[in-house]
């Protein structure tokens, strides 16, 4: 790992050269030797890893997709092929010289093998495929600590801050990235596990006790939690920053959350967003700003990002919309190359220094959408309408008059061959005129999603919270696809 301060000042050319160098070494000395899957792929494609010069040659490597790694019934251990592990054959083949060495000999080789031993595991959430394990070695834990430190540095968080980590506990990246970041910074923290673990009331009490300056939440739960705090007249004057992970934060929601914090005494609180993925085993922070978007600051010594046309797979230019493709650099454990994230960066990748903080590391544009949330619906007799479910989030999450919402997709009459229906359950703010509100909402939904709602169903907040699983699920269920299958 390079020094973060140094990285932040490197020119584009220097970063590129460093990445070329690291990619060459990583492919030849680690991936080709120790990754079963990639060594087979390289052999199949007759790519000599010693001849790869740098990023320019990446395009000759095939993409890796979620489905390639996810366990199947036939091969539940498929993920192991992506884990760097010197097996007996490799150790025998390359370790003999070291074993003969007078400096450590056999014991040194054994220790080296332990460097590859996984000690910690995260799983993907399993929304689109079976949950897939991603493994960390001790060396990787140092990396996740360092990247956590970098993320907090982007957010201007220091060891003088106090953090309430309310990400739901699971063997998932969000909770653990926050924990390791705090550990590296030696920052006081409560790693609560979220509302499901401690309960909202205990978490509210914890804020009184801890007086945190930093809150870490998933957006939907944060909005509920802060409304509850306002209702109880709690004191949140210590809070300076709230940062989110797990899902996107629409601008309207940021405003609503900021307003709630201000109501509870917080002075000029700032809402910050992170972007992370289990496959990369780390997360990146968005450069802090109240109303401008400067993108997520990446770690060029630990990864290479490309943006490609989602259809053709061709690389797109700087700042052009494309699917984010990730390649690990210098990690151990589970390592993926040219991994298709399924996330579309609307503003692409930017290599210019950040106009906000001046850091020179590559930035992924703030507007990221999940490609996989585009689903096919039979909404009319013309089958196969494509609906971007992403569009519901900014519209409904950021709506100033909506407290909670949920979208349910069903089959008419629960008949698998009938048309699809879309229902919106909504708990609006008190005092709204329902008829006017419904009509305005229907129009905005048609405009943003191009679908017409079957019905809008009004519900009291507690009932809808229950239906969302706000305190019982790892993440609340905003969109339910309850279509009966034939």
């Amino acid at each position, binding site marked *: 790992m390079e020094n973060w301060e140094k990285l932040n000042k490197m020119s584009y050319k220097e970063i590129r050269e460093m990445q070329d160098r690291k990619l060459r070494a990583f492919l030849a000395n680690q991936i080709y030797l120790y990754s079963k899957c990639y060594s087979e792929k390289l052999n199949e494609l007759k790519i000599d890893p010693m001849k790869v010069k740098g990023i320019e040659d990446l395009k000759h490597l095939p993409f890796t997709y979620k489905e390639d790694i996810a366990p199947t019934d036939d091969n539940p251990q498929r993920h192991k092929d992506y884990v760097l592990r010197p097996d007996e054959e490799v150790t025998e083949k390359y370790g003999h010289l070291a074993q003969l060495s007078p400096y450590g000999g056999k014991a040194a080789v054994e220790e080296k093998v*332990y460097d590859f031993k996984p000690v910690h*595991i995260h799983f993907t959430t399993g929304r689109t495929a079976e949950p897939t394990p991603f493994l960390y070695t001790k060396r990787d834990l140092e990396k996740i600590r360092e990247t956590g430190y970098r993320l907090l540095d982007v957010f201007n968080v220091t060891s003088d801050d106090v953090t309430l980590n309310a990400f739901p*506990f699971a*063997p998932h990246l969000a909770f653990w990235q926050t924990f390791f970041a705090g550990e590296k910074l*030696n920052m006081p*923290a409560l790693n609560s596990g979220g509302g499901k673990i401690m309960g909202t009331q205990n978490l509210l009490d*914890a804020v009184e*006790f801890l007086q945190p300056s930093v809150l870490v939440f998933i957006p939907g739960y944060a909005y509920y939690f802060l409304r509850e705090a306002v209702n109880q007249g709690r004191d949140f004057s210590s809070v300076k920053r709230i940062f989110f992970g797990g899902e996107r934060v629409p601008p309207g929601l940021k405003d609503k959350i900021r307003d709630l914090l201000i109501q509870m005494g917080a002075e000029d609180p700032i809402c910050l967003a992170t972007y992370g993925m289990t496959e990369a085993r780390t997360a990146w922070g968005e450069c802090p700003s109240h109303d401008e978007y400067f993108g997520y600051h990446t770690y060029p010594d630990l990864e290479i990002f490309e943006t490609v046309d989602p259809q053709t797979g061709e690389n797109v230019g700087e700042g052009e919309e494309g699917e984010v493709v990730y390649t690990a650099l210098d990690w151990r454990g589970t390592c993926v190359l040219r991994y298709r994230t399924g996330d579309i960066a609307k503003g692409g990748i930017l290599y210019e220094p950040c106009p906000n903080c001046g850091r020179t590391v590559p930035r992924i544009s703030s507007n990221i959408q999940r490609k996989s949330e585009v689903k096919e619906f039979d909404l009319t007799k013309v089958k196969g309408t494509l609906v971007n479910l992403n569009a519901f989030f900014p519209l409904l999450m950021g709506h100033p008059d909506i407290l909670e919402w949920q979208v349910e997709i069903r089959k008419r009459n629960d008949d698998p061959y009938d048309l699809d229906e879309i229902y919106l359950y909504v708990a609006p703010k008190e005092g709204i005129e329902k008829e006017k509100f419904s009509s305005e909402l229907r129009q905005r939904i048609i405009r943003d999603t191009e679908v017409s709602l079957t019905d809008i169903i009004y519900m009291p907040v507690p009932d809808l919270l229950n239906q969302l699983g706000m305190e019982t699920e790892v993440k609340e269920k905003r969109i339910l696809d309850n279509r009966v299958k034939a």
Partner: protein
Amino acid sequence: MQLWSKVSKMSPQDIKSMQDSLLVSMIKDEMSSYHPYYQKLFAEKGIDPQTIKGTDDLKELPFTTKKEVAPDETDLKRPKQFVLEQIREGGQAEKKKGFLGKLFKKKEEEEKEDYPYRMVQLFYTRGKVKKMVPLVFTALDLRNLKETGMRSFDFWGLERDDSTINAFSYMPHVSFWQIFYATVEIGSTALQTGGGRVLGAEKILKALFNLEATTLITFPGYAEYCLQILNRFGFMMPTLEKIVLGMDDAPPSLIKKIQEGMEKAGAKDTQVFRSYYLSEAKGGWPECSPGYGYHIHPDHVFVEIVDPETGERKNEEESGEIVITNLDARGTVFLRFRSGDIATGGMTTKPCPNCGRTVPRILGDIDRLDRIFELNLGQEKREFNFNDMRRLLLGMKDLSQWYVEINREGESDRLKLVACSGIKENEPDLDKKIHKYLEQENFDIPLHIDISSYEDITQRQGMERGVTECRIFDKRNK
């Protein structure tokens, strides 16, 4: 904390003198000057901290109970009174180093000076009776938590070649985090599942299988539950060698059942271990083998066993309530904290006949005072010790899952046991068998028995929802 290889071989006299000196330093250097609660208490009661020369003098000090520590609606910050102040004038190292030391001191060293006092993690008690109590852990406390975790692994023979499933229910609690820190420190492969309440049994069992795990760490009820599922569906887990139990008491009869369950699942050379966690003690105490007692870390905490009624100190191996005093801790610290847990076999300072370690041991089962109820049976009032009933029922051969309700009917209290004998179907006459078994074991409180399904019972117990399963529901006045 000191070197374990040294502490585990110390004579009782050496342990006592080490504890005397640690206690004096804790009271003199920390509590009397920087502890808001004890400073005030000493002043109010006219206690001169200088007169405390060792652990024998602790008897002169009042107990601290959960009531004094737990927050309530009127005072959510009450637990802060038990946290050592972080900011010290000058700082110990600075005083020692003098002017030149101060002049040449590096920034790093300056930062290290406050590290024992600086909070890094906030943990909580489980809040079984009162509200959950926040406990401040400093860097020194986490270092000690790692050390006690490593010592536990030494007891259980866990090494870096092991693969571990940490299925302690996730809580910001010492049990989960001690195992996490120890697995990372030792470098063994580990999955921190968060228990059934996070992942559910199916995923935990899959992980056990896929990781070819050698060790499962969880609470007793959940270990039994997982094995029942494995055995019922005939799944084999031949790599599983060890199960470590904690967060609740596991009587020997349950340990036997668990061992049988492991063998049924194809495990060989099985071992089951127990550990006793007490949040306020800031760590857990392991057993080297079931029945030999929980081995205390005498360089970390001082333990007394007292009469729960009178508060008098008990003799060796006499049953009584566990009372702890932190000897090497910062952040939240306690003097004579009453745990509400009863060591049924008391405490001994004799060397362990199994492992030879000389540290004090807590013997017998751990009973909870909050599991003792008063029943109004119409004609008479009776004490109902659910700890005893739990022990009996957990050991009953044909009983698979169960829970007990205390209901009020008119003016009288009634006990109801809801039970089942298997996952798929219940044995005929199960209720009669239970009545007979309890009668043989001299359980003489009238009991109504309902037979229910495995699923309904485990659901009611909160097996996949709670921190541990609940087997007693006091429904009176509710």
